[in-house]
């Protein structure tokens, strides 16, 4: 069979490893609201982390409604080659983490070395998203849903 969980997992992992940013969608009082975020995806694909200021709109949105959606994709690599692009939508619930585990910070900084002071600022919080579902779109129209 062509589609299997192992293959999908490595596809997701590969895109997370080779692309830098994700798009986060939150609920802004009933309206969709999107941002670019620097993120870290856990190896088990169950959680995604990012840092944000406590004063941002996305932070406030998450406080009101923790259900979010995140998009990652490889369009940076394949530019205009529509049929080679894979897009991964994650659905999940965000929570605000008060104590940042050293291990998470280190891994986050290995992806975003320039953001050391950003992750340490008292203004900023670590957000963890527990991912409940992946929607993987490849070959332009093939759509497979997966629970991590």
């Amino acid at each position, binding site marked *: *069979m*062509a*589609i*299997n*969980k192992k293959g*999908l997992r490595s596809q997701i992992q590969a895109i997370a490893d080779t692309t830098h940013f994700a798009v986060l969608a939150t609920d802004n009082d009933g309206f969709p609201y999107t941002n670019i975020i620097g993120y870290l995806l856990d190896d088990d694909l169950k959680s995604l982390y990012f840092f944000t200021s406590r004063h941002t709109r996305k932070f406030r949105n998450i406080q009101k409604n923790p*259900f979010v959606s995140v998009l990652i994709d490889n369009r940076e690599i394949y530019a*205009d*080659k*529509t*049929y*080679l692009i894979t897009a991964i939508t994650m*659905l*999940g*619930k965000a929570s605000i983490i008060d104590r940042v585990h050293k291990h998470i910070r280190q891994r986050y900084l290995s992806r975003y070395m320039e953001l050391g002071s950003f992750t340490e600022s008292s203004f900023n919080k670590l957000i963890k998203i527990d991912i*409940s*579902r992946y*929607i993987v779109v490849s*070959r*332009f*129209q*093939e*759509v*497979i*849903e*997966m*629970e991590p």
Partner: protein
Amino acid sequence: MMGVFCKKFSEILGSDSKICGPKALKLAKIIQAGFPVPNGLCVTIEGYRAFVRSNGLDRKIIKEIQKKDIDAMRWEEIWDLSLAIKNFMIQTDIPKDLYDAIKEAVLALFGDVPVAVRSSSPEEDSEKTSFAGIHDSFLNIRGIEEIIKHIKMVWGSLFSTASIVYRKNRTGWLHDISIAVIIQRMIKSDRSGVVFTVNPMDRATGVIESVWGYNQGLVDGTVEPFKWILDRKTAEIDSSNRPKKIFMMKDPFSHEIIELKDGRVPLENGAVKEIFQDALKIEGLFNQATDIEWTMTENEFFFLQARPITTGKDLLDGDQKKDRELRPDLAKLSGIRKKIKNEILPGMQEDIRYAKGIDIQKITDDALIHEAKKLLKNYLRWKQSYWDYLIPFAHAIRMFGDFYNSKMAPASPHAYIGLLETDDLISVKRNARLLRFAELAQKDKDLYEIIQKHKSLKNSVYGKEFQDLMDEFKEDSSFGEAVTDANIMKIIGQYAQNFKKNTKVLVDQDHLKEKFIGNLKEAEKKLGIGLLDLAKEAYNLRDNDNILMGRLESPLKAAFSELQKRYQDLSVDQQKEYASSYQNFLENSMSMLQAKQRKKKPASLFARQLTGQPASSGTAEGKARVIHHQKDLFEIKASEIIVCDAIEPNMTFVIPAASAIIERRGGMLIHGAIIAREYKIPCITGVEDAMVFIKTGDYLHIDGDLGIITIERTRKVSHPS
């Protein structure tokens, strides 16, 4: 721009290898060293690149390639892919600067004389790979428009089935490949041959082979050559060998071969030595063992191409082997047609008649075992013929498709099928009888009720007609005991609910045929008409051959089933004989619905949209009916969408009740696709995971034009939607 896009042989330098390909480079070296080579030029890889970058062609190619994982494609699907890409190429105009450059170069060098248009791939002719014959060459092309068209066809052959199969196993990547094209003055070959400067069997010697006429017969192995072995040091002839029968390829396109009775040898010994001496000098130019093709007119001699003798073993994998075996060949196909028409079909019919004459219930146990063994023997014999002749004969359809597209450049690569469709399919005729009952039931309330409640029709006015229908079904179907009055009534009942007047608009085939033939040059007409004729017959046979196999299988199943009933009364020896024959049958049955290992859907994985090959256009929506077993066929409800591994001709009676078909098996010419087009319902084939992800009852949306299936399923969600 001419210098970038076109280079004359006399201008090509060693540093041009990357843009001209080694074949052109070698010819240039040979000509520059003073040996006779038909004059020519190279349309460089830059020309190809400019072409595919124009009009978004490169993106269209990627789109086709990415539609499905190449490793999951059957050879037949690769053929469809190849046809689609080649058609893009033929249809796309080349950019004006490229057109002007080629026109200027061609007119300056050749004027209006006929030329050969050949591939020169950067990957061809290397010592490690054996690309020979993978890309196309065209002979005897005349006039700038025809030359341009054939350049596009050589570019298209970068995506020939052979090339795709070859590359997917080696480089695995089809995206950034390119090809140069050689245009050379055409030589009308009187005799031709090949020189191997080193004999692979004995490195102290070399070999010359020669045939009358064109080289194609020698290269593809259909014409046995005269052969000389020469000493490399002295260029003296060590030994020579002549073929038992002398053949000549008269026409390299139709591959027409004739036998020569006069026994003349194409080369005198003096000429053999002279060619070998020149070949050794050419070998010196490249510093490697070389094989060189040559040709002669009545009074001129030419070297045609040189390439290194590949040292790597030519190991063919399954697909490549198949691709070689199945390469279309008009003469071969005509021979197959004759055999099918005169021997195979009448033979099958005779064995079907024989089986009908056996009264299985009445004969003794011994006689029954004897008959079962005989029926099995017949079945196995025809099964072999099916694989040896009937399956390869389907290539007549593909050969015609390629020819049609190269001449007509149609908007859809599969337009040629319109010329082949027929009302003469056995399965369609049988369905017409079912449809007639459905129509009657719509008008006659009593009949409708009988059918809906599966009551007996014995005493009604339709009794005899229904019995006839049942008899035909029992004879045709390989489902044996599943064909009951009640089951067939179930199907008619569903037809009646899904009944639409036969609104089928037949394509005006006469008009299409006229247009096609009108578009051919005088010299091509015979070939075009011959190919169409062959393809029509092959298309018709595509479904009917399976029905005949079903008719051979059906009495065999009945005989085994009767033996099963009598099992307890059989002697031990008889039981053994029955068991071994039955095992042999199970292993060889062509019925695809035999118990198959079902693939399980992985937990926590769901398909929302699947894609496949659009094989019959239109859109539909409805509940899925997944066919895992024979019994599932009789459960179909009107307007459901059939999801199956593959539609067998014996299953097609359910199609008029359905609103669409989805098949795991891929291709435009498989039974499901043929029958879906016949009934004008959408069909998507080659959906690798259809049977895994779709469950009976799932609500589906089908786009038969794009090949997209959307699956609606109600399930618990852990996230608000």
